[in-house]
């Protein structure tokens, strides 16, 4: 980020700081609530503004709750989906961009139609289909719908097309096979695109709510989104506000840490989508 006058003008800065406060206040409030005893919050949640603070809600999560398990499930599903999307879309993108075969254009057009089909149009029949196949309540069942990413194929096809063909020709002259060419020569060049697609896929899968809600049927297969949904909808009967908010904080920490550590890469990766 290099352009623009170096200092933010005072007026803009005031606006930005107010905005930042609005961004941060809910998060701080959540953190404060999570550090209070539930009985105190029961009387008045304003107690969160003042000490004493306690870690008891976090102890409770670690001692006896499924939140760590749901976190693990979310990680498995999101990472699995991301890996699958990267592999499938890279292969297909390369194939569509570089190879000649019958019906290539037709197939590509078919895939591009998918860009216009929202998930809601297929989720209910897909639910019936997975039931017939016995795929529900399993990791593959949770991941498979996420693998259908026409945008990913479109994106990778464009990226491969932008790589000069001379590279292929040089490698082919050296006697490289089609797959070696793809794997050793071209794929490394697409790393920025992989990063972009990976970040989008991961976030999309991490945030997915409706599909795991109806596909995961036992609590040990719930993802975070589904697990935390049931406890917030009857929170009156829960262990209390503090515990609920500690769940939220606990569940957000890993992804926030990843975000802070890799902020630069993530930002660059996301920017990649706009450049193309």
């Amino acid at each position, binding site marked *: 980020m290099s*352009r623009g006058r170096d200092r933010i003008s005072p007026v803009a800065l005031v606006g930005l700081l107010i905005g930042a406060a609005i*961004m941060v206040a809910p998060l701080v409030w959540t953190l404060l609530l999570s550090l209070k005893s539930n009985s105190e919050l029961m009387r008045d949640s304003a107690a969160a503004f003042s000490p004493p603070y306690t870690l008891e809600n976090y102890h409770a999560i670690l001692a006896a709750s499924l939140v760590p398990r749901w976190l693990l499930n979310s990680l498995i599903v999101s990472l699995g989906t991301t890996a699958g999307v990267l592999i499938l879309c890279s292969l297909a993108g390369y194939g569509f961009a570089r190879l000649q075969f019958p019906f290539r254009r037709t197939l590509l057009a078919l895939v591009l139609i998918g860009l216009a089909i929202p998930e809601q149009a297929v989720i209910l029949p897909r639910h019936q289909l997975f039931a017939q196949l016995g795929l529900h309540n399993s990791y593959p069942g949770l991941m498979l719908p996420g693998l259908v990413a026409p945008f990913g194929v479109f994106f990778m096809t464009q990226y491969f097309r932008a790589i000069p063909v001379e590279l292929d020709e040089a490698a082919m002259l050296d006697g490289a096979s089609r797959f070696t060419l793809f794997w050793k020569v071209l794929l490394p060049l697409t790393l920025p695109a992989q990063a972009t697609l990976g970040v989008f896929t991961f976030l999309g899968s*991490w945030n997915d*709510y409706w599909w795991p809600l109806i596909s995961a049927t036992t609590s040990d297969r719930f993802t975070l989104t589904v697990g935390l949904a049931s406890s917030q909808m009857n929170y009156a009967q829960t262990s209390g506000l503090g515990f609920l908010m500690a769940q939220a904080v606990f569940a957000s920490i890993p992804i926030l840490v990843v975000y802070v550590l890799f902020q630069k890469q993530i930002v660059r990766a996301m920017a990649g989508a706009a450049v193309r």
Partner: protein
Amino acid sequence: MIGPRSGSTWQGYAFVGPFVALYCFLLIYPLFMGIEISFNRADLFGNREFVGLENYRRLFADPIFHQAVATTFKLTLLIVPTLTVITLLLALALNRATRTAGVLRGVFFSSSVLSVTILTLIWRFVLTPDAGLIAKLLGVFGWEPIPFLSDPDLTVPALAIATVWWSLGLPMMLFLAGLQQIPGDIYEAAALDRASRWTTFWKVTLPSLRGVLILVIMLQTAAQLQIFGQAQLLTSGGPSGRSRPIVLYIYELAFGRWELGYAIAAAEVLFLLVLVITALQYWAVSRTKADR
């Protein structure tokens, strides 16, 4: 075709085959399966009865569906322009190399990594009148709490606010990336012409961002037309269905009322709506382009 023509047919299918197979099986097949089911009175448990277009006829006469469509449009119209303007301003202000700008970019992006259930958990206890942050802050001044989650005029704006708060990250990043693409010499030329910052923005920056702007608006429109989790978890569509978007209605029809055929018919209508609206946006954009 760009590539060397040495690839044989089977190689091509080997590369595109895995995706295309999965795509046909998990997207195209269910799409047709859904269209077929929508012509049936079907329940969740496999009972079917062919009724032709009856489900669609019912939808067009269903006031609750009309209400859901109106609510969805209201949400989209509240969210998309707000989000676009705010993120564009943020990107303009934060497109610089200072440390402050870096930190602020991080702050405005951070909410995007939260999942929808955590978003609603946080915002429930910001908005709820008995225990929420806003109510407690108003209480400091002795003011009455505001029933954001139950007042018929406030639930839709409340959902919009939470959604905007949640969705700033991606559009801001897209705008920032777009700003980075604008060649520096255009600005230099503008500076030589003594163009004001305002003129520079309208004449240089905004036209250069046109592609990104369209992308942001189209992506967000398609996303908000399908809004679901926030409404289900924060307001349950209440009060009296005033904040129930289409997808929540589809969910209720399928799993609460077991009317699978009717639910899928509603989903097909939503599909058409998304398609038509994005196509219209695209058409409007290409027409203005032709005008120039």
